[in-house]
């Protein structure tokens, strides 16, 4: 089965100096190592790290139309910071990878089964 591991962290708390923070650089190299580990295990199907939430732009859709705003879709304590897509046998295997995933301080990793890709893709 394919799962997305969605990484949520409190940016302000984990990386007070943003992308210049040593913790930011450290987590990037931890993720490089972790991604390599998943690739060697043959489970890695993709993923991306996201730039700081300060760079987010949101297009909000209502029946009246689409409007563009500064900032993430919602102000939350923890923000989406990146995701991995993996292919493993079952939820327990996905949980094992999530347990090992690098997190700077506090955070959450949401595990979501992915819909199968439409045929022909």
């Amino acid at each position: 089965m394919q799962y997305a591991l969605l990484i949520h962290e409190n940016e302000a708390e984990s990386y007070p100096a943003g992308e210049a923070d040593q913790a930011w650089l450290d987590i990037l190299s931890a993720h490089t190592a972790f991604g390599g580990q998943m690739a060697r295990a043959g489970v890695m199907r993709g993923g991306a790290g996201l730039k700081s939430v300060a760079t987010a732009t949101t297009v909000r859709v209502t029946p009246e139309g689409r409007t563009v705003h500064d900032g993430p879709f919602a102000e939350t304590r923890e923000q989406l910071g990146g995701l991995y897509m993996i292919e493993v046998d079952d939820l327990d295997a996905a949980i094992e990878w999530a347990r090992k995933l690098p997190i700077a301080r506090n955070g959450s990793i949401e595990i979501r089964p992915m819909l199968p890709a439409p045929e022909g893709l």
Partner: protein
Amino acid sequence: MSALDRAFREAGGRVVSALAAGFRDLDLAEEAFAEACARAASTWGDRPPLDPAAWLYSVARRVALDRLRHKATAGAHRPDEPEPEPTPEDHIMRMDPPIPDERLRLIFVCCHPAIAPDARAALTLKTVCGLTTAELAQAYLLPEPTLAQRLVRAKRKIAEAGVPFEVPGPERWGERLDAVLSTLEVAYAQAHADAALAGPHAGFGREMLSLAALLARLTPDEPEVLALAASLHLTEARRGARLDAEGAMVPLSEQDVRDWDAALCDAGERLLARSAALSRGARHAPGPRAIQSAIHAAHASRRRSGVTPWPDVLALYDALLVVRNDPVVRANRAVALAQAFCPAAALAEIDGLGAVGWLPWHAARADMLARLGRHAEAVAEYDAALALSPKPAEALFLKRRRAASVAA
């Protein structure tokens, strides 16, 4: 009870578990089993097969296989040849393969930490013990559609999130077993909360007991499983002694030991002895459930000695505090301290907890004040406890104690 009813009761859980593990699909297992029961109802008549459970299992397996085949060929418009129905004679003549016992695996599936906590026990009881949704709704005092909805959500989560139909490996065994045991504990505590067992809770407690006993048989080398099963046996044994003639709750240490179920007490003590022997053999300190069951066993020993060994109970609560330091344990320890040595010290401990608004705290505090002869304060504390709407049996008990303090 008809042969079918009996087979459904005695083997339903085992058959459904075997089907679910085999097909990795709880819904398919349940539907196929229901279909097999319907076929049994229309074909057995007064000549049931020699082994009704094996009949149900093999028919349900075939039903499930047919459904899977239909699903696979649905687009191709090629209906399968219907298979000939086995007659009861077929099953008498032929040896059926034994039904694999997959109940342990299913207990782990249903109590997976990824399943909503309020659905785990109900799902386990339905799948592994064969309780119906109606029975579960009654036991949980929930409308049937609400409970059914919870079960549907849980089963959907299992199917769509890819919860594995496996017994966890050694590296996760402890953690996952703990989730199973907490599920049983919480469910049993719910079943046991009300001393007045006139309602459907009584049967539910028995189901939890048989589930714990089953788990103990399936994992005979796990001290904490044996200990939890021991606690449930010792607690269930007291069921008949928890109410007096007027329907008031009788506290454990004042129950008439002749009303305890001796066979359940014996079984509980045997389970605890095995649990303790295993811990000693592995040189492990006893876990929290082993200590709790030792507390139950200390109370149960009164059936031989005539007195509750309060100093032992107190020492066990001290040991329990080391591994499980929560307000419930601290309040219970204070109660044991009041009984063993010194209500004044116990009152100081209870006051230190300051759990205003928690019924057992007010009830314990009232009792200690009364023991110390501070009756006016005791009456006020009984009033505080009664204001928290205790169940009728406990309310009656508290009112009596309050009246005794008023009179003193």
